[in-house]
């Protein structure tokens, strides 16, 4: 399945884009997606386990992904 991954702030700068289209096997988990992103040029500085949101909710690394999910990598938040 193809999933779109949204990137923000320092992660978008590091990878030079605000969204990625990744090809993942069916039944892939959040950790599989993170591993793919971390293998991309520019991603060397990303944490081993960055925060991930699936469909706008924080997700655990073992959560399974489905086609059509909205996935986002969330850099350390700094609101307020």
């Amino acid at each position: 399945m193809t999933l779109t991954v949204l990137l923000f702030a320092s992660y978008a700068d590091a990878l030079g884009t605000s969204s990625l289209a990744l090809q993942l096997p069916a039944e892939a988990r959040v950790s599989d997606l993170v591993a793919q992103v971390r293998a991309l040029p520019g991603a060397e500085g990303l944490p081993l386990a960055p925060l991930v949101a699936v469909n706008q909710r924080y997700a655990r690394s073992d959560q399974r992904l489905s086609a059509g999910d909205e996935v986002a990598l969330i850099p350390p938040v700094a609101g307020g």
Partner: protein
Amino acid sequence: MRSALVHAPIDVSALIAEVSGARNGAIVVFLGTVREVNDGRAVTGIDYRAYEAMAERELAAIAGEAAERWGSPDVVVEHRLGALTLGEVSVAIVAAHPRRAPAFEVGRFVIEELKRRVPVWKLEHYVDGTREWVGSTAIGPEASGVGRGPLGESR
């Protein structure tokens, strides 16, 4: 209760009016403002960015949790996005309650949860012309942060 991301200056008086009423005996206002120095560096302004759809959802969840936990629907929170100059209000929380202690507690709860969970980022601009994402300096395996994460886990 109400929450919003806004792109224009926050009208604090309007927020106070929104929660005012004879049922309440206390209104607590918290304003977050742009500070001139951060980590020893002179700041000229901050660009606030967000994952807007999720930030709106998290803000609404926090306001809802506060209203339920302290039994008062009279809480409003607005977070501003875009380019802010020194001293401008970036976030406003107004909590009204029949009693003052819970009003303070609601204000504290909302700002602490906001800083922990709401996907907003600060791009700080410095006097020397450089700029940097706040909290990203230690980008790397150790940078997942300290304290309690958004999932409630120890980190």
